[in-house]
């Protein structure tokens, strides 16, 4: 159980994390979401005692991280897969970490086997691809067989095979009853793995809820229709109680009606349709909506059409 209470961290004048409070429940995959620069990594660094909070406190099982008897047996964390000395072999890298927590030497071979790096164990990690480095980092987190695992943007830069592997691993870890805390700036990534979500933006908490709750908070489905007779269609569907609005040039967006119903009305009214599609509000959009005001580095202009299907 990780508890973050009133965590505040500044770097100079810039506030990275602002009075953040949340808890991570055991035995679940908790997604930690936020746009780039939202303070996810900073929060993780504060949990691990790498950075010192300006205010607030973080505890792991009621203790601050540096007070844990054997930190690697409690928490396995991978913040940056490239944070290794490239001149050292994979085996020796893991060995020097295992030794700090008095873990048996045989453990190194076991975790290398687990992540499939046995063949390159004696190779210097300088030559590893990002995917291999990621595996090495995960091997390190598993050395102490910890109950809590933390991954910061684990799929960033990975090829599809690597992404698939990490997703499966996180699910398997959670299925074993471990707590998995994983950050991402991609909502889509969470669709596959997370049970619970903590969403932050500009260092502040935006949402702390279950995945299903998060989806239901979003504005729901709409129907996108492209027609040369937009005015007629809007009139027809609003007459039946739906809400319709022009989405872009010749497309309109209808809410409160299924695509089938919209199609039937169009047929009855002899309105020509060029496109008829259900637009499901994806998690991505729900996320965009929630964090819209808190994106730190936002593009100056909205891309035309980017708001399609995004509710409101």
């Amino acid at each position: 159980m990780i508890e973050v209470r009133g965590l505040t961290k500044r770097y100079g004048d810039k506030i990275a994390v602002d009075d953040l409070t949340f808890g991570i429940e055991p035995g679940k995959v908790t997604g930690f979401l936020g746009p780039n620069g939202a303070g996810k990594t900073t929060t993780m660094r504060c949990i691990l005692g790498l950075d010192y909070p300006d205010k607030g406190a973080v505890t792991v099982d009621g203790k601050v991280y540096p007070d844990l008897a054997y930190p690697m047996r409690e928490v396995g964390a991978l913040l940056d897969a490239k944070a290794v000395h490239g001149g050292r072999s994979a085996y020796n890298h893991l060995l020097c970490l295992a030794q700090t927590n008095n873990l048996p030497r045989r453990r190194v071979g076991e975790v290398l086997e687990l992540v499939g790096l046995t063949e390159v164990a004696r190779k210097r990690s300088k030559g590893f691809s990002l995917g291999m480095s990621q595996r090495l980092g995960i091997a390190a987190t598993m050395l102490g067989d910890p109950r809590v695992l933390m991954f910061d943007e684990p799929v960033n830069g990975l090829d599809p095979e690597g992404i698939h592997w990490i997703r499966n691993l996180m699910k398997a870890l959670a299925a074993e009853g471990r707590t998995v805390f994983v950050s991402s700036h991609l909502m889509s990534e969470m669709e596959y793995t997370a049970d619970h979500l903590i969403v932050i933006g500009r260092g502040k908490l935006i949402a702390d809820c279950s995945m299903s709750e998060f989806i239901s908070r979003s504005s729901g489905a709409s129907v996108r229709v492209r027609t040369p007779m937009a005015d007629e269609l809007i009139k027809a569907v609003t007459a039946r109680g739906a809400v319709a609005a022009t989405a872009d040039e010749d497309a309109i967006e209808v809410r409160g009606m299924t695509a089938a119903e919209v199609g039937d009305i169009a047929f009855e009214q002899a309105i020509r349709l060029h496109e008829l599609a259900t637009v499901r509000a994806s998690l991505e959009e729900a996320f965009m909506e929630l964090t819209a005001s808190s994106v730190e580095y936002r593009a100056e202009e909205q891309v035309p059409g980017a708001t399609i299907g995004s509710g409101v």
Partner: protein
Amino acid sequence: MATATTPNVRLASLPPATGRAGLGGAIASEFTKLRSVRSTYWTLGSLFIVSVGLSVAICAGTAANMVNNPGNKAGFDATQHSLLAFFFLGELIISVIGAMVITSEYSTGMIRTALTAQPRRGVVYAAKAITLTTVTLVISVITSFIAFFAGQEMLSGKGVAASLFHTVKIPANAMVNCVGGSGGQIADGKGPGPGPCGGHLTVTFSGTDMITVSNVLTAIIGCAVFVTLVALIAFGVGAIIRHTAGAITTVIALVFVIPIVENALPSNWHNDIMRFLPDAANQVVSVTVAANGPTNLWSAWPQLGVTAIWAAVLVGIGAYLFRKRDA
């Protein structure tokens, strides 16, 4: 590279934990780190090769020179000549390893991984300092002894070689005489005096200097201690600066450049300041012919104490910053 199969996260269970992660594990870890990167072997290897190789070269050259210039034998400090390369260049080479023990962790990002495994920073820092000191001291002592013996071997038969087993008497106060020619010139000191000598030169010595076993042992061990202390100075500077090139440059400035600048000062200032500099020790620890010792410095061990204080202060400041700053 293995294929992406669904991972089986079943691992053999670990033995139950007792106590807590502490200094013992941290030292084992630091030793693994040190022995598992090539830079350690490059650095310590070059320390050995440069120290022993140059000792052989310098002493062999000096020995050859003594054939023509026997006056050079007067008060010749064979110990110092055999250790010259070790303490003078060794301090530069060793500062690389001293700094890199800590700076390489910052440049690679390894420090974050290491401090996640062992977040008690005082333990990590102490383990680094202890491991560095032990490894450096062992290698330095071995290098120092071998450089000494190799150098003395080159000087054997010249009547000036120092020994670790018995006190050696060497000639002092050379008098160079011109025999059988006009315009005889007499010079005291280290060689034939200026001016033409029609005949041939003879050298006579008056009195002897002593090279005692304890002085030789002090020089060999003292130089090794000095080099180890410089490694610690570099380590402390590395912890403060957290940048390899910056740390090494600073150490070179401290032990190489500042003494040169300081030499340019008026001599009364110069003499007062010099003994407080970290590298002053190398001018006295290596001296085994008492008459040659610099007069404006303390003796070997107090002067090494000055270097030790520099090391302690810098390592201490490094420790404070290592614990206080964000990693």
